[in-house]
């Protein structure tokens, strides 16, 4: 057989940065530098929602980006996680926070499997509609049954303080470090998962379900596993959102808008990349703040919150369309290209 042309060897002798170095540097900086330089405002208004949404996007990316199952129910699974954590914490005395969080994730995973069952028959648009059912059902159930919010009259409840083994993470920095630890661990898990046999199965089912089935990939099990793991991670993102960021637990924050927001994050950031979830979340969180600064600087008082909200939606909508058309692989691909170009310049 005609031998395959050997790949270009121009890079083979150049100095190569190990792939794990960049993420490691980011983690070290996030733990070691950010807490000392970031103001409480930056932590509360930017970093905490960024972390929670990044984690939710990592979770959704496993389901939608890797396994190809479109879901509009992410916020519902966040809500399940948040309320499950609240109730486990409230009703089981002395339950360690770590266990509470794992149980909350497991609860979200169980609900995720239930709402993932239609995926065994439905695809694409129809599946998305059926995950909408999860969104509306969960929100309805949490509002309807007072038990979930311990019969609080407003339905809004204070999240308990974060404490592990007697150490409380109460201040902004403490909650940041707590959220960062959870996100780091789960992201590392997701990173390993998508590179394992299970991750290859996700992609196989996404790219050609019939061929995967004929090859002996357990398609049904693979889909349900994607729903379970995705919902587990998104559920824990919900715990971070409620316990570390907002410090209240309420169903309203976990609405359809939030589900779309997480979907937009993975579209803008890049489907089927772990990094993309963080790029996309950064853009979605930071962008409105920049827009509001910019707006009030240029238009003064005319640029009130209504106008801000409106222009935000318009610009985000436009961004998504631009990304879908011009860069379907998202910010992660854009980033790779920039790196490659910069690398190419330093090469002889």
């Amino acid at each position, binding site marked *: 057989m005609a031998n395959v042309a050997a790949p270009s060897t121009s890079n083979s002798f150049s100095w190569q940065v190990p792939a794990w170095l960049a993420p490691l540097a980011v983690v070290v900086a996030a733990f070691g530098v950010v807490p000392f330089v970031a103001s409480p405002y930056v932590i509360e208004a930017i970093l905490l929602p960024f972390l929670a949404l990044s984690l939710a996007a990592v979770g959704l990316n496993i389901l939608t980006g890797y396994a190809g199952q479109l879901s509009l129910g992410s916020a519902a699974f966040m809500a399940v996680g948040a309320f499950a954590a609240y109730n486990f914490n409230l009703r089981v005395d002395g339950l360690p926070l770590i266990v509470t969080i794992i149980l909350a994730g497991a609860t979200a995973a169980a609900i995720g499997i239930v709402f993932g069952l239609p995926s065994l028959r439905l695809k694409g648009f129809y599946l998305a509609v059926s995950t909408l059912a999860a969104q509306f059902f969960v929100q309805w159930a949490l509002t309807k049954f007072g038990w979930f919010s311990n019969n609080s009259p407003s339905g809004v409840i204070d999240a308990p303080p974060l404490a592990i083994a007697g150490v409380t993470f109460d201040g902004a920095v403490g909650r940041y470090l707590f959220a960062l630890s959870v996100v780091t661990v789960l992201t590392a898990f997701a990173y390993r*998962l998508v590179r394992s046999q299970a991750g290859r199965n996700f992609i196989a089912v996404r790219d050609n379900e019939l061929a995967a089935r004929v090859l*002996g990939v357990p398609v049904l099990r693979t889909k349900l596993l994607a729903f379970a793991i995705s919902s587990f991670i998104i559920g824990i993102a919900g715990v971070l959102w409620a316990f570390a960021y907002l410090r209240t637990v309420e169903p309203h924050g976990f609405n359809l808008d939030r589900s779309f927001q997480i979907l937009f994050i993975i579209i803008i950031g890049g489907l089927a990349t772990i990094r993309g979830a963080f790029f996309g979340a950064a853009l979605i969180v930071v962008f409105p703040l920049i827009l509001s600064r910019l707006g009030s600087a240029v238009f003064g008082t005319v640029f009130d919150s209504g106008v801000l909200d409106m222009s935000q939606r318009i610009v985000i909508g436009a961004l998504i369309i631009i990304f879908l058309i011009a860069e379907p692989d998202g910010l992660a691909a854009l980033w790779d290209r920039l790196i490659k170009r910069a690398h190419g310049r330093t090469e002889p």
Partner: protein
Amino acid sequence: MTRHLTDVGSIDSSSTQAAGPDVASLLQGYDPGKPATEPILHLSGISLAFGGVTALTGVDLRVEKGEIRAVIGPNGAGKSSLINVISGVYSPDKGTIGFAGQTYAAMRANRVAHLGLARTYQNLALFKGLSVIENIQTGFAPRVRSNFVEQTFAIGRARAEERSSRQAAEDAIALLELTAVRDRPVSTLAYGLQKRVELARALVSRPVLLLLDEPMAGMPAGEKQELAAYIRTARDSLGTTVILIEHDIGVVMGLSDRIAVLDYGHKIADGTPQEIQANQAVIDAYLGIAHPEDDAVAGEARA
């Protein structure tokens, strides 16, 4: 006919022991009276229709273990449909499928790999988001027993499985000379290379029966000959039985032990390359001479 049956995988040897070809059955095709050997695949009376379009009508096919069995016929004759029936993609309307000592009314797509069946597709069915080696490793799926926790942390059964699936994939990559592109995303490869990756993916599980739907379509002549050599190697070294759909008559004549000819969903001939070459019905089918019996299914079926 030469046979090399070194490793036939998981098939129960008692039910499928092929004690050399029976000369009569080779010359005559299927003889229901006295099957001298148990064929590895035995289709009988397979019919399949899509709405009003008949794809297969009462097709019988006997495939002996270790042979390379070509299926030829004009476009729309039902060749791909036949492969789809054998691999469980379609359920036949009538007929039975005997495979490795069991008889089925229909194969189930999610079971065929576990039974030792692998296939390629006329139109490529690779996983675009995976690299060459990852695509090929996917073919190892029927052997995987570990769960996602073991796989994620590379512990327990997953360790050995990952090692063997990598090794099997590397072997297939070496065999099909894909080393230079092993880590490339498959979607970036030329068509002919993608066809080879698909063949490697099918071979990695060491199938008992390999179904190839036009594996050489669109390849230059030289590459076809080399692919034919690999198919023969797979049969000779693994004992894999091969069903091959191919339009290039030269390749088919040189490679196959026996040839079945389909036309308008009917099997019109079955025999050795020499017999097929001399068969008047086959010559007519290829020259487009209408038979009285074809008129019933002609027209829309051929459109």
